[in-house]
């Protein structure tokens, strides 16, 4: 072939089959090579992050050039010109360059790409781990919350049953238990009885002996202990086909009430425990985690506390109910007693009056009858009537006295009296009877016994009379001796009354009176009964005609006088001695300047009560002055009269014991006198008592008087009796404020 076209011939004939296949392959290769960069660009544009742009560009260029090469190859299958060959060669050269560059580049890139994958895996693992831990913490926190909630539930009630039920329910819920049960010790303490369960409504009275080793194991530790699901404690569910879940048991101390007296929780002294058994669900392959066990222990403790609170409450409620009952009973008893007392008082009051009235009539008329002309027989009869009615009157008085004594409403009439006279009087009164009976009565008064004493002479006489009278009554022959002396402290104590501790002092002394008789005596066992009222001894020995009140009354009187009375006797037929000790006051020295208390027995109207008492009377009104003077003179006072303040102040001296002043004159300030007198006699014992006479009935006057230092206020008009009583009160108490 002639070639002027400068063409290059392909090596193989163009129509060869191989050539055809090459042609088609080249075409497809070019196509693919051109589409790859397009795809790359498309996807890279889509992705957000791709750090290897430059590599891509290189790779794209390489691919494009490869594609170009193959494309140009298509023209070389047929005869082609030199230009085509040139282009082909250029493309190939370029491709070679780029591909070598790319190959070099990839050496750096590929390890990086590979390590990315490793990192990704590592991070994924880490994330999974953190997830797990989060789950754990969440569980723990939830458990804590459950504990708090459980505790709250348990403590919010004080009912034992509710506490236990709530515990089981809440525990079951919190821990997702299959079964939860409480075993309580029986009364005998030898067995544990199934008391509460979570799922079964009515637990069978299932008991388990307490001395199983597994139980001991649980009781000896304060922690929750894993036990075997096959032990009797845990056989609560019907035997399942599958593996039972893990079982844990914990002890619940049952604290007794008395344990709370000690400050620290008693570890060993509580002997009683209950047992709580918790079962995880079977087939769950769950395990008891530490935090769950801790939860169980905490709950067990809380339950123990709550149970003891419930026990305490029960106890205190019971005590309170008891107390209330007792209160009601006491109240009733008190009211009954009060009613009885009231009834008795009413009865006495009525009877007293009813009895006294006829008595009075009898006595009065009998005495009147005595005054008239009577034949001797009549006189004897009247005298007998009088004596009997006097006795009866005494009896009535005794009864009234006794009831008043018991009420505590009797008060002694304390006054100064002649002690010797009392004894003499008693002797005189009693003399007739012993002389008839041929008894000899002797009175022995100790020389150191004071002649005068302060006390209730009437009641003292009554006591002595009663005692001596008894002695006389129950003696048929022999002698009766009465001794009285001042009791010494050592001899005051009576073994029978160890509480009686008399202590003599400067103002008081203890009078001891012993009455010894040689009569029929008393047997020792009867002695205590003597002083009980209405109790009489059996007839033969002491045939008393009295009502049995006498000694009881005496005892009361003696007690009122801070004393003690008792009877000693060696037995029947050996006579007896009655002894009593009473407290009497020692009167002050009898002095004319001081005002003595005249014995009430000898006071009578019209007689002077205040001999020589110097009184200063100040009154502007002549008439009322004269009247007041008359009053005081009648009472035996030595009265000085003044009619003005100045005169009063001039005349008043420490000899005057009382200053009576009229303060109801308007415009005149009688109060000024009080102040001036206070100034003149600063010492209290020199100052006369200042008393205001006023017709004003208001409080202001009284307050004014008190303010200026007056010792008393008397309301006009003043009667003789009033003046007398006022003066005596004043001199005794040195103050008198009549209720205005």
């Amino acid at each position, binding site marked *: 072939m002639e070639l002027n076209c400068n063409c290059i011939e392909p090596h193989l004939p163009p129509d060869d089959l191989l050539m055809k296949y090459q042609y088609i392959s080249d075409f497809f290769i070019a196509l693919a090579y051109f589409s790859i960069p397009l795809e790359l660009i498309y996807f890279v544009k889509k992705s957000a992050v791709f750090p290897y742009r430059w590599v891509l560009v290189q790779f794209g260029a390489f691919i494009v050039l490869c594609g170009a090469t193959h494309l140009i190859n298509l023209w070389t299958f047929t005869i082609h010109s030199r230009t085509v060959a040139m282009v082909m060669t250029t493309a190939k050269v370029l491709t070679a360059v780029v591909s070598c560059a790319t190959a070099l580049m990839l050496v750096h890139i590929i390890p990086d790409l590979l390590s990315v994958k490793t990192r990704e895996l590592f991070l994924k693992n880490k994330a999974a781990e953190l997830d797990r831990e989060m789950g754990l913490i969440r569980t723990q926190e939830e458990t804590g919350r459950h504990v708090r909630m459980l505790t709250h539930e348990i403590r919010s009630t004080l009912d034992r049953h509710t506490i236990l039920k709530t515990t089981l329910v809440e525990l079951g819920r919190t821990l997702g238990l299959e079964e939860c049960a409480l075993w309580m010790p029986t009364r005998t303490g030898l067995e544990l009885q199934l008391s509460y369960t979570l799922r079964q409504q009515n637990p069978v009275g299932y008991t388990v002996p307490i001395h199983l080793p597994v139980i001991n194991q649980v009781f000896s530790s304060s922690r929750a202990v894993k036990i075997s699901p096959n032990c009797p404690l845990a056989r609560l569910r019907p035997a399942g086909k599958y593996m039972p879940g893990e079982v844990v048991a914990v002890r619940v101390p049952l604290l007794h009430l008395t344990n709370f007296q000690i400050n620290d929780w008693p570890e060993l002294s509580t002997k009683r425990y209950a047992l709580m058994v918790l079962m995880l669900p079977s087939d769950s392959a769950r395990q008891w985690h530490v935090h769950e066990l801790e939860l169980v222990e905490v709950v067990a403790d809380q339950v123990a506390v709550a149970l003891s609170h419930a026990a305490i409450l029960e106890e205190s409620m019971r005590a309170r109910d008891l107390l209330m009952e007792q209160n009601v009973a006491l109240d009733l008893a008190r009211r009954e007693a009060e009613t009885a007392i009231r009834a008795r008082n009413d009865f006495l009051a009525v009877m007293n009056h009813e009895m006294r009235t006829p008595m009075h009539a009898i006595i009065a008329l009998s005495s009147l009858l005595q005054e008239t002309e009577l034949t001797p027989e009549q006189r004897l009869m009247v005298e007998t009537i009088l004596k009997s009615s006097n006795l009866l009157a005494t009896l009535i008085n005794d009864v009234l006295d006794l009831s008043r004594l018991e009420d505590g409403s009797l008060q002694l009439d304390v006054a100064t009296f002649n002690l010797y006279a009392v004894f003499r009087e008693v002797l005189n009164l009693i003399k007739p009877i012993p002389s008839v009976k041929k008894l000899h009565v002797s009175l022995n008064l100790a020389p150191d016994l004071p002649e005068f004493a302060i006390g209730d002479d009437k009641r003292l006489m009554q006591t002595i009379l009663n005692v001596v009278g008894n002695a006389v009554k129950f003696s048929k022959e022999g002698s009766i001796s009465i001794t009285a002396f001042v009791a010494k402290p050592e001899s005051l104590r009576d073994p029978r009354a160890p509480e009686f501790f008399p202590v003599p002092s400067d103002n008081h002394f203890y009078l001891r009176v012993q009455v010894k008789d040689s009569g029929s005596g008393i047997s020792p066992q009867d002695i205590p009964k003597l002083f009980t009222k209405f109790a009489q001894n059996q007839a033969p020995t002491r045939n008393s005609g009295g009502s049995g009140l006498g000694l009881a009354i005496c005892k009361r009187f003696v007690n009122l006088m801070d004393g003690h009375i008792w009877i000693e006797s060696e037995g029947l037929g050996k006579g007896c001695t009655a002894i009593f000790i009473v407290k009497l006051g020692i009167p002050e020295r009898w002095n004319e300047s001081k005002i003595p208390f005249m014995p009430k027995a000898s006071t009578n109207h019209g007689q002077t009560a205040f001999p020589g008492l110097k009184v200063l009377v100040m009154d502007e009104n002549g008439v*009322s002055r*004269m009247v007041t003077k008359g009053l005081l003179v*009648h009472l035996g006072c030595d009265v000085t009269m003044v009619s003005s303040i100045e005169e009063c102040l001039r005349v008043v001296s420490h000899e005057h014991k009382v200053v009576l002043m*009229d303060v*109801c004159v308007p415009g005149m300030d009688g109060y000024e006198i009080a102040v001036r007198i206070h100034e003149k006699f600063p010492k209290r014992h020199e100052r006369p008592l200042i008393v205001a006479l006023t*017709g004003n009935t208001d409080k202001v006057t009284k307050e004014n008087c008190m303010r200026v230092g007056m010792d008393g206020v008397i309301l006009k008009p003043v009667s003789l009796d009033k003046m007398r009583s006022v003066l005596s009160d004043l001199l005794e108490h040195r103050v008198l404020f009549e209720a205005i």
Partner: protein
Amino acid sequence: MERNPIRRQLANMRQSLFDQGYLDEQFIQLEELQDDANPNFVEEVVTLYYRDSGRILLNIEQALERKPFDFHKLDGYMHQFKGSSSSIGAKKVKAESTLFREYCKSGNGEGCMRTFQQLKREYATLRKKLEAYFQLARQAGPMETACRPK
């Protein structure tokens, strides 16, 4: 029961003085003060009363003539008069004095004048009666202790 007719008459007169309201308890108090040491105590007091109060009444009269009335002064006088009257137990007189004082306090001159006239009448009446009483008493001789009127 008094055996002596004079004594009986005296007792009746005394009783009527009480019953008619001329005298009150205070008079009895005075009588109680009378004893052997002071046999004429009551009469002495009453005499003194009339002397004293006469003077006061005169003062009041003079004060009432001067117009306008000095109520304060009048009240003062009447207070004294009232005091004396109550000391001997002159019941009606005392009542009038109280009334007078009320009028003085309220400044009622007209009332004062009226009451004063009434008071003077009562005063004079009582005086006559008491004089008669004491005269009879002197005739009757030493009196026994008075009994309280029923």
